């Protein structure tokens, strides 16, 4: 048994890559992931990628901001240091709508940036995880788990038949920037 962990089909053309995905799926070969330098329309549906839950996260980050600001304002203006401003009630809600809105946006934005970093493992000191460096430049990469799909010659034929310019056998999962 070889030490090959991943087989990468490297395509120069997105249509050929989409064709390659179809060929692999017809032969029941499970695709680990696909890396492209640009978004490809309809690829999520083809690969069966689950819908992102980012919008749900955004809602909860936002609502956290709303609650934080309203609580903070209430504590400051009505409980801790009540001041009569223009004869209005201490907790005059309309006055604090703009800043509540701001904090909702701020929490939402920071929360989403944090979620993005966490899910992509991008944070300071961490080498980026890249399976093929040219996937960020001019190549469209289909990655197949070589341990789960053992018919390596067949995969090689399918990929080349679909128009892969190159098929790589990697013994490491990621080729990070060194």
């Amino acid at each position, binding site marked *: 048994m070889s030490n090959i962990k991943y087989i990468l089909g490297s395509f120069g053309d997105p249509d050929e890559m989409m064709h390659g995905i179809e060929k692999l799926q017809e032969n029941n070969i499970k695709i680990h992931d696909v890396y492209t330098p640009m978004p490809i329309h309809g690829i999520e549906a083809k690969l069966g990628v689950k819908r992102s839950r980012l*919008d749900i996260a955004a809602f909860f980050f936002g609502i956290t901001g709303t609650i934080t600001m309203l609580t903070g304002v209430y504590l400051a203006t009505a409980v801790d240091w009540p001041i009569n401003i223009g004869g209005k009630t201490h907790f005059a809600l*309309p006055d604090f709508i703009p800043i509540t809105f701001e904090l909702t946006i701020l929490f939402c934005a920071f929360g989403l940036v944090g979620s993005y970093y966490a899910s992509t493992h991008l944070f300071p000191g961490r080498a980026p995880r890249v399976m093929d460096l040219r996937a960020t430049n001019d190549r469209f990469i289909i990655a197949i788990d070589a341990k789960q799909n053992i018919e390596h010659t067949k995969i090689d034929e399918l990929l080349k038949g679909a128009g892969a310019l190159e098929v790589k056998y990697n013994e490491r999962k990621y080729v990070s920037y060194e």
Partner: protein
Amino acid sequence: MGTHHYNLTEQFEFTGKAKILSIVGIVLGVAAIAYGFMSGAHERTFANLLLMAYYFACVCMSGAFFLAVQFVAQAGWSASILRVPQAMAKVLPLAVIILLVVIGLGLYTHNLYHHWNAPGLTDPNSPNYDKLIDGKSAFLNVPFFMARQVIFLGVYSIFAVLLAKWSNNEDLAGGLNSYRKSFKYSCVFLVIYGFTTPIFAFDTIMSLEAHWFSTMFGWYNFAAMWVSSLATIAVIIILLKKSGYMSWVNNSHLHNLGQFIFGFSIFWTYVWFAQFLLIYYANMSEETVYFYKRFNGYEFWFYLNLALNFLSPLLLLMDRDNKRSENILLTVSIIVLVGHWVDYYQMIMPGIFELGTASGSGFGILEVGTALGFIGLFTFAVLTALSKKPLIAKNHPFLQESLNHHL
């Protein structure tokens, strides 16, 4: 690019239930207005006529605005649904005539705009002399007022009719000439429209309470007319689709319309609140009088307005799947349309009627009947205009993009 086999010469047939119901609506409206005049509630009838005529004209002119925005943005997604706003734009001249007649008669009979158009208001020797109104009389006088109305509405009508006409020429002749012309004149129209709609709203609605003013009022009305027009477009498209027309409209088109309605409902809330907050915060009596009237006797309408126009689109259209669902988008669009009736109602009524007077405003046969009448008239006119031409602009340069639209 997938290949599609849509019937590009499909034409809407205006018959059956839609035709009967719209005629019933018109008859009910005429009956309600006649009842209003005969029962002596002239002022209330005029207020309702102004409300619905303004709503009607605003929805139609925002249909033309929608067309212009699509051309200027060189939008592809909307190419296959443009016939619906075009039908609304074609009806604009009719709406303009009705609005001008209502305003003209209202001024003539002193049932409308009597805050600035009453005998002696600008005469220093008269007991009715009003210094504030006299100061505004260079702008708020009948000839200049009517001239502004005629010019603004006339210019909108010309652009609306031309944009619809060029699209029909494109059907016949093909080529890019019509598109280029539409693009160029849309740019001009947007500039004119952007600068004049606030003034149009100041004149038509805000001058009902001529002592009060708010610079946000124009944008507040612009947001209301634009979002109600978007909701109307969505309602027409969904109902057409449900009765078997426009098979090319998929849920991505609905998603875009839903985003528009969601976004501009939030924008409406933003300008509404921007106007409210500054007045609330500064607390100056000449400004707060506007909200004082709305908090004393009209509280229900005041809060209903916010619930219908802000909370319902916010909560019901936030989710992506809801924007893509025909039934939910239809429901929210209707809620928004009712909501903007309430919005205009509480812009107009508290300013005209003193609370507790005999001829005072209320909610009854007159309000419902007038609204039904104008809905019937709008439906009848727009569907007649729609049935004249094929439902798709087959030579629009971006048609393929729209037919393959997918989000």
